[in-house]
């Protein structure tokens, strides 16, 4: 039973039958249902770039949990967006020590300026979210930016404009492949 009427935005982002099937499949791999919370949240987040509250309720129903339990887990991880989706491309700009020593903080600031947003908020057209990240585990390529599945390595902070252009390009490309979710991702290409 859904206690709250889904908002318009949420109604547009339901749990699809494919998602439900995938979440059911995941249940077989874990000794208990609650362990499927994180994988289930990922299934939804991957597709909608957010996990609407209505999806929290549906996941809870599927897993036999209280919605509050799912919401509790979701809210612990700053990773999941809930109020509105992140951009088609979510660009994580590392600000931890190795990247900071090579200009990571400045890069983050500059990219936000260019996108006209604050860290973590999507650009007005929804193409791009620029976000601060802690160490991306790619410190030998500092400063680096992980944009969806593409790692931009050893970015020159002076060339933020060039990177911004590439991110917009990536967003345009991935928006196209999002329409056909099975399509090839733009990943793998590791930029220097």
């Amino acid at each position, binding site marked *: 039973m859904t206690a709250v009427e889904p908002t318009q935005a949420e109604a547009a982002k339901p749990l699809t039958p494919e998602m439900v099937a995938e979440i059911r499949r995941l249940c077989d791999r874990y000794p208990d249902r*609650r362990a499927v919370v994180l994988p289930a*949240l990922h299934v939804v987040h991957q597709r909608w770039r957010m996990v609407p509250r209505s999806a929290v309720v549906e996941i809870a129903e599927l897993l036999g949990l209280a919605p509050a339990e799912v919401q*509790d887990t979701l809210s612990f991880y700053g990773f999941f967006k809930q109020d509105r989706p992140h951009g088609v491309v979510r660009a994580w700009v590392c600000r*931890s*020590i190795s990247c900071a020593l090579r200009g990571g903080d400045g890069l983050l600031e500059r990219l936000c300026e260019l996108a006209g947003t604050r860290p973590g908020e999507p650009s007005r057209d929804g193409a791009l979210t620029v976000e601060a990240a802690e*160490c991306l585990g790619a410190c030998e390529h*500092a400063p680096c930016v992980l944009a969806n599945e593409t790692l931009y390595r050893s970015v020159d902070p002076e060339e933020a404009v060039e990177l911004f252009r590439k991110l917009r390009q990536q967003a345009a490309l991935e928006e196209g492949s999002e329409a056909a979710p099975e399509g090839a991702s733009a990943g793998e290409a590791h930029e220097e």
Partner: protein
Amino acid sequence: MAAFEPVLLARIERPESHTLADYESTGGYQTLRRVLGSQSPEEVIDEVKRSGLRGRGGAGFPTGLKWTFLPKERKGPTYFCLNADESEPGTFNNRILMEEDPHQVLEGLILSCYATGTTTAFFYMRYEYPLAWKRIGRAIEECYEAGYLGKNILGSGYDLDVVPHRGAAAYICGEETGLIESLEGKRAWPRIKPPFPAVEGAFRQPTVVNNVETVACVRHICERGADWFRSMGVPPDPDNPRDAGSFGPKLYCLSGHVERPGCFEAPLGLTVRELIDGYGGGVWKGRRAKAAIPGGISMGLLTEDEFDCPLDFNGPGRYGCLGLGTAAVVVLDETVEMVDFLHNSCRFFAHESCGQCTPCREGTAWALRILERIRAGRGRLVDLDILLQIGDSIGIIPGTTICGLADGAAWPIKNAIRKFRDEFESYIRRTNPQGYEESEPVPALDWTTH
């Protein structure tokens, strides 16, 4: 000592190093085949024990010994959690292993699971490793197809499933009990120990948690034997009865202000200077170094004249650091403002504290606020003592918190201020000439969420 021959990184330059075919073409899974066909789990544990292998994830606990803590009589399942959450700033060796040689990791994992009587392993990987996620996922599929995973592996009667599980960008999921809570679908709040995971871990069952590099070492110990492993590294310090020695090869990560950042394999005991000069091409731009973190930011700081510190389990502690940690060295050149370094460190820990222990949640948050105020030109000399007071009072070592994140937050504060006090003082005098001597409480800056 014979010339050192890398084993963990031996294959990574091969163009198809991540595929099963390539792995098998270099002898991959022969060790697994031999061990499953001829050795009992106890024999594997004995070999690992004898090798002196200590965990590579940061705490350095002897691996074989940890495995013997599993209860002898077990009715329910035993779980294995492979810790691939690698999020310690400066650290990326697990990523390289998983991206470039995933089967090496999996062979090590299967051997470790066999030794510990595990039939389900969870491969807990941090979210931010999309390429490693794909490659490990594919490698697991290949293993099922080839009969290295699943039922009755290689006809031995041994069954094992490996479940890849993806984190959600939270550092605390690397702490072993935080990882377990996260795996169980809850917030990653570390548990009070004991009980240790070996007795009661995931889903309340006995559970082994090991790091990716640790199981990769297990693979080579099984192939080459404990004596080979013990032939490298540093024997126990006779003056330190608690030191169990530092044997075997280690992956050193090097980044920051060096000419050639990267991941390098060498026997444990390499000095910071040898790593920077011999492997990293020296400090970048012809500059001098001012300091380095010895093993991930949690371990604190070494000054330039401490660079002869050997990177073994015993070394950094002798220089006032927390320990070897992940053996990830980050170099700070002479232009770095130590206030900025410490601000960066405090921001990381304030952001990553899971919030369950008040001293850690409040201590890390206040340390960050103070550093922000100092950087805004409103620092006071007394702030340095307040910071030290915070540093000295949060963590497992002073006994005020549940997990070691707080110790990791404390060490950069303690080392930076104690080793560079003059620099902090002159920064404060310079940037706040009117008020540096004030000792009245100062209001915090506007506090925004981080």
